[in-house]
């Protein structure tokens, strides 16, 4: 059976509708969302209501958390002061637009969802703000999945979809302790684990303009990245009409990579 995993919708209704349509056309009914329903985009209430309507299980994203907590993402998550200013503006705009009911909905979203061997989170099991980049240290990546007691970790937040398999691992250790003079040696085998990043529906940053999400076959364990075209112009017009920074529209049109990503992506906000 196939399941679909979507992430980072970012209040882009035409993109969300197109992706849900694509999922429906494949006959998939099992969908999980990894959060960031809002932020940057012009239709926060509409996107939340669509997800609620369809009863799609959803984790809380970094934007969902920040908007309800009245927090701005800390300075460290922006690459420049200008980007930070824009981010704060989008945050304020979203906070003003959201209905009380939708804010409550975001506030009560869980940090993670577990289904058998699959764990679904927004950023990492440690934090909604931690980026698990595709080429991060392989042992650190494996540690995230292993310590979360999962076999497959589904995440988002980077807006770049990928599938990473970590296999055939082992670590050898040599131990001396105060209680004995002997030196002990042992080798520990590491389990095979996978990290699947669902990319972004509403704010792709993979270099193209298409919305992305992933489909996982629970029987064969195969994972496929899907790219979906949507009516970009519609979203861009809505961004301008809403008075949001025009660069948000420009970014969507150009599929600009890393537009708002911090320089040190491994940095975790300690706020």
């Amino acid at each position: 059976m196939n399941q679909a995993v979507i992430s980072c919708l970012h209040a882009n209704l035409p993109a969300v509708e197109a992706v849900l349509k694509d999922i429906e056309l494949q006959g998939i009914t099992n969908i999980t969302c990894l959060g960031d329903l809002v932020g940057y985009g012009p239709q926060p209430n509409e996107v939340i209501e669509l997800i609620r309507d369809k009863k799609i299980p959803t984790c809380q994203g970094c934007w969902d958390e920040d908007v309800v907590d009245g927090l701005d993402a800390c300075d460290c998550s922006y690459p420049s002061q200008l980007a930070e200013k824009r981010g704060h503006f989008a945050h304020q705009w979203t906070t003003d637009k959201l209905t009380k009911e939708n804010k409550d909905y975001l506030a009560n979203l869980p940090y993670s969802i577990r289904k058998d061997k699959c764990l679904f989170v927004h950023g990492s099991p440690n934090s909604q703000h931690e980026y698990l980049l595709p080429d991060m240290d392989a042992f650190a990546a494996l540690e995230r999945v292993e310590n979360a007691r999962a076999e497959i970790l589904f995440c988002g937040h980077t807006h770049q979809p990928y599938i990473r398999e970590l296999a055939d691992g082992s670590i050898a250790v040599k131990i001396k302790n105060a209680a004995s003079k002997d030196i002990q040696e042992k080798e520990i085998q590491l389990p095979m684990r996978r990290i699947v990043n669902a990319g972004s529906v509403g704010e792709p940053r993979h270099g193209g303009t298409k919305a992305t999400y992933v489909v996982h076959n629970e029987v064969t364990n195969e994972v496929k990245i899907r790219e979906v075209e949507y009516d970009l112009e519609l979203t861009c017009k809505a961004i301008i009409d809403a008075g949001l920074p025009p660069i948000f529209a420009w970014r969507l049109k150009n599929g600009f990579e890393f537009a708002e990503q911090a320089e040190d992506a491994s940095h975790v906000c300690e706020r």
Partner: protein
Amino acid sequence: MIERWALVSGLKGDLDTYELIQKDLKKTPGNITLFVLGDMIGPEKNCNRLLHRLINPKSNDLQPWCIYGWWEEQILLESGYRGDQRAEALRINKGEEVVKSLTNAVDKSFLDWIAALQFGFVELDCGLIHGSSKDVGENLTLDTPPLTLLDRLTRLQVNRLFTARSKQQFHLELTEGIVNSEVEDLNGNRKKEQKVPQKAVIGIGSGKNYTLYDVGTDNTQFLQAGYKSEKRIMGFGGL
């Protein structure tokens, strides 16, 4: 001159033990730096005399370099230095009595000094902390999964991590390791084999049990304050 670090923790107000260690170190050859990795205070004893001595070393004392530990974190929490939080974990686990004993054991005049202590030091390629780079209360032991140890080392970007929280004395080296990584994204597939760089985690002990580290040879000695040197367990140098 040989460069050595003396690593001490868990004194919990015990000035006598601290003086014994100072005395030991005076007889130890080399250029010694003394690090006190937290838990200078605790609920069992009045800690004021030890704190006073750490802040105002005697003229022939080795200067102590201190960081905060789990018990310091508890008193800072309880005294309102960490916002609205209080020492709830301590209260739940050990009861109100222990919370009271702790706050009674330390004069308020020391709190600002405690609050100014750092979480850890990074010296050369070594991290010196109380618990782990993730949390001051995290126990790293001989039985902690190597993946976790590696992560805690990576977080501080160090090759050696000195930790005290578990009270254990050990020197665990990650000597070898490998993992194969395969990434598939919209640009295609890429495979990489990653190896474990040589790294180590060293448990320094607590109270009378402390550790001497020889910076040049990477040799650890697990010592007990006041014991003659022949009882010392020698480290495995040259690993």
